[in-house]
């Protein structure tokens, strides 16, 4: 078997360097075409009619007037009379028309009558959920009762983290055309290879008849894997309109109402510990919702999984609101928040520096040395020892500063991926795989791996992704893409290079296994003067290209990649105790991701993860109205994302030391977005002397906590 191993760290020309993304200019100059930018000839515009009540039954629906409108090409009833609807915003009907304005006007002509049914849209108060809260069985480890009895100190806290949305800037949707023989789909998707089969199934077509193409996607964060009701209806409308392409993207209100949320988590956590801070006992009673289907169960105690005595109870609450979709590191922010806020409260009670409590308990984690090392590095970058003060001892002024820390982990691993590396007789190189670049820099990473392997400059590689006619590659979820595509690309490139060596060996008077590819040449190892330029070598192929496959199997990943990373994140905040406003001063993120393929885009993932966490900690919350069952803030004025002035200084350190690098490539997108939310909560508590129980830490909640009211 060929040697696929990565070149030793010191011998890499491209991997691990800071390289600009290859599609950067195209995107930043506005010329990149996202699915939502496509304007094919004869395009029709689709629009959705959605349910106005959180829980209702359709009693009648009349689309005749809409159908009769000039310019309307198709009207589809999605929820016929008798359909019970479980959340506001659910799809009721769809229209396609020759312009978007006509489609929107036509929606107004659809007459629907509803029987309004009782709803539940809020879950913060578990008592009100009644039978809609389903308790999972209690989980027990060790002897928690004995543990609390023997503990030197017991601390109990209540913590809450709300439902938030993905708020992808490019909304969900697609352009789709259903011609007589095939369907062409141009979706905004994280799943180029898989979404075609999904649509084909819904349309009852052979999977081979759905072609999927996508060059760029304007954000997904876990919410864009399937063809969705709107994709299926758009396809039907295309068929009913003689195969004309239909563009249907959600408007912002619908996007924020039904296109996915992160589940909430609320509950009590009780810790028992020794005087020195060693945790012996965990007890938690939590609940969550992710919409009508209930809610995710966060993996708690998070990271500190080896606490000897544990009792855990969790209830999933079904509410009448748009459903959960994977949200960047599913259930992990919640788990981190419930766990690391409790740890900080324990440290405060013991009058210890939380850094020492986290370090002490690192032995309860699967990777004690990694976390201790990262805690040390992060503390240095934060200047923690100099800045830290015991909780609440932040001076007499009204502006209070505080520090907080949290630690996280994510499994990742590499998804199934196949790649073809094609070396053409004219010297051009193409790498093909049915993957996608979510903005993480996948396209560039593929080129880096191929160029590194073939001894070529980065711009010599043409990366072809975003088409389900290329070899299948997994969906981009769970930080599994970089592992999958870097391994398949590496193997494909090595395999093709071996063929090229075999083809040119005779003309260099050497054996194939004596050759190497260096700096745009094929040369004899140890005799660099015996060489051919890359182009001259490829010319020897005659008329036939080399096209070898490389494969990563999720279950059998080999030595190129691995899984499981650790990270430490710290926050420094300033709280104005008169206004309750929390301002970010500084964040520090120390992150392991194994072998770094592109340092520039890897750092961007961590910056981005931190900034998303800042928004989640300080601004984001889907607010439901108990009376009407509506989302009160399905827009970007009141569903707030952080702006450029909200983030403070951010310092990122990637662990690239040998022991980390040796592990192989590991995904990074999810872990970077986990810890800072809890770290900010801890920093606020450290600053003002009291815990603000519920995220986001908005001024009203901060002031309420300061006044001793529940917040």
């Amino acid at each position, binding site marked *: 078997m060929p040697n696929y191993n990565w070149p030793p760290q010191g011998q890499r020309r491209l991997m691990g360097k800071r390289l600009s993304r290859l599609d950067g200019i195209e995107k*930043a100059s506005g010329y990149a075409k996202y699915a939502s930018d496509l*304007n094919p000839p004869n395009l029709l*515009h689709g629009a959705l009619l959605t349910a106005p009540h959180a829980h209702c039954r359709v009693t009648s629906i009349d689309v005749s007037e809409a159908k009769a409108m000039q310019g309307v090409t198709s009207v589809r009833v999605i929820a016929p009379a008798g359909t019970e609807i479980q959340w506001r915003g659910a799809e009721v009907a769809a229209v396609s028309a020759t312009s978007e*304005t006509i489609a929107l006007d036509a929606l107004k002509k659809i007459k629907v009558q509803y029987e309004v049914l009782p709803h539940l849209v809020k879950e913060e108060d578990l008592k009100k959920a009644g039978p809609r809260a389903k308790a999972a069985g209690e989980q027990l480890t060790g002897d928690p009762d004995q543990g609390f009895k023997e503990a030197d100190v017991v601390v109990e806290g209540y913590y809450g983290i709300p439902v938030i949305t993905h708020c992808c800037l490019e909304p969900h949707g697609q352009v789709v055309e259903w011609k007589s023989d095939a369907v062409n789909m141009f979706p905004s998707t994280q799943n180029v290879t898989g979404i075609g089969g999904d649509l084909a199934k819904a349309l009852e077509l052979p999977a081979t008849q759905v072609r999927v193409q996508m060059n760029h996607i304007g954000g997904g964060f876990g919410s864009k894997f399937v063809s969705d009701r709107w994709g299926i209806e758009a396809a039907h409308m295309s068929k009913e309109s003689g195969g004309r392409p239909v563009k249907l993207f959600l408007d912002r209100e619908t996007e924020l109402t039904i296109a996915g949320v992160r589940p909430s988590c609320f509950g009590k956590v009780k810790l028992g510990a020794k005087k020195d801070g060693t945790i012996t006992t965990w007890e938690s009673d939590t609940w969550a919702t992710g919409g009508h289907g209930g809610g995710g169960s966060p993996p708690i105690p998070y990271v500190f999984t080896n606490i000897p005595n544990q009792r855990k109870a969790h209830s999933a609450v079904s509410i009448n609101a748009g459903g959960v979709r994977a949200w960047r590191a599913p259930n992990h922010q919640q788990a981190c928040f419930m766990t690391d806020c409790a740890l900080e409260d324990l440290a405060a009670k013991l009058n210890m520096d939380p850094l020492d409590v986290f370090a002490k308990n690192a032995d309860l984690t699967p990777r004690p040395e990694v976390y201790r090392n990262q805690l040390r590095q992060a503390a240095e970058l934060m200047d923690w020892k100099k800045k830290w003060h015991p909780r609440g001892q932040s001076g007499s002024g009204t502006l209070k500063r505080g520090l907080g820390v949290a630690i996280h982990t994510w499994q990742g691993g590499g998804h199934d991926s196949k790649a073809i590396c094609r070396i053409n007789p004219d010297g051009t190189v193409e790498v093909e795989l049915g993957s996608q670049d979510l903005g993480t820099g996948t396209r560039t990473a593929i080129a880096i791996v191929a160029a590194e392997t073939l001894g070529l400059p980065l711009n010599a590689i043409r990366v072809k992704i975003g088409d389900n006619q290329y070899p299948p590659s997994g969906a981009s979820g769970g930080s599994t893409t970089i592992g999958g595509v870097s391994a398949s690309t590496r193997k494909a490139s090595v395999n093709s290079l071996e063929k090229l060596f075999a083809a040119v060996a005779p003309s260099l008077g050497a054996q194939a296994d004596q050759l190497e590819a260096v700096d745009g040449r094929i040369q004899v190892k140890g005799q660099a003067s015996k060489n051919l330029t890359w182009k001259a070598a490829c010319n020897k192929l005659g008329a036939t290209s080399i096209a070898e496959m490389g494969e990563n199997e999720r279950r059998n990943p080999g030595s190129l990649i691995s899984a499981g990373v650790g990270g430490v994140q710290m926050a420094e905040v300033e709280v104005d105790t008169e206004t309750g406003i929390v301002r970010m001063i500084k964040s520090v993120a120390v992150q392991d991701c194994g072998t770094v393929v592109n340092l520039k885009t890897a750092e961007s993932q961590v910056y981005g993860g931190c900034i998303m966490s800042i928004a989640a900690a300080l601004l984001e919350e889907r607010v439901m109205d108990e009376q009407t069952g509506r989302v009160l803030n399905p827009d970007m004025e009141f569903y707030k994302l952080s702006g450029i002035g909200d983030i403070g200084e951010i310092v990122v350190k990637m662990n690239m030391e040998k022991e980390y690098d040796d592990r192989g490539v590991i995904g990074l997108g999810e872990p970077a977005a986990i810890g800072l939310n809890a770290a900010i909560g801890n920093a606020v508590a450290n600053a003002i002397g009291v815990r603000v129980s519920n995220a986001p830490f908005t001024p009203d909640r901060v002031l309420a906590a300061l006044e001793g009211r529940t917040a």
Partner: protein
Amino acid sequence: MSSRKEPEVPKKTKPAVSRRGFIQGVGLGTGALGGALTGTAEAAPQSAGGAVSGPGAVPFSLRINGKTHNVTLEPRVTLLDALRDSLDLTGAKRVCDRGTCGACTVIVDGRAVYACSVLAIDMQGRQIQTIEGIGTPDKPHPVTSAFVEHDAQQCGYCTPGFVMAAKAYLDRNPNPRSEADVEAGLGGNLCRCGTYVGVRKAVLDAARDVRRGRNA
């Protein structure tokens, strides 16, 4: 799959509340949030004429990137939808569609404007500049290059809006002194992927490049 198409225009439609009426009714200028605070994005004044047009499509022309484009559009169509749907200028993105996020930023008579929050018909006689007009992938604007260099983009959906806002900001404030200045100047744009660290550096760098370009 991206060819220019002729807009198909409706003959007669009577919306109950026209978008035009709505926008004028609430006096929604652009730069409703950060931009208004910083003065980098502001409302282009509404056209002065009192003539009634619409609600059906009416012919008019727009001056975009130095070229005149004749369009026939309903008066309720925003500049953003006109650019994207009728002229295939899709660099400006539709994200919030109501003046909050800046993804649709274009430059009108030298000022940053949210294209989703002005009507196309009101832009007659104005000089409209879109991201496509300030550079191409082969000959990028210095701000665009700086965004790439500092990786001030991930998914990139917010990026053309940021580049235009940054350009408009630098045109008026060629010497930003600090990241804080840049934050004030670009407060009217939002990014979900979290690229602000790169944006701050890119804009400061671009300012240097633009100055150098001017002096050269």
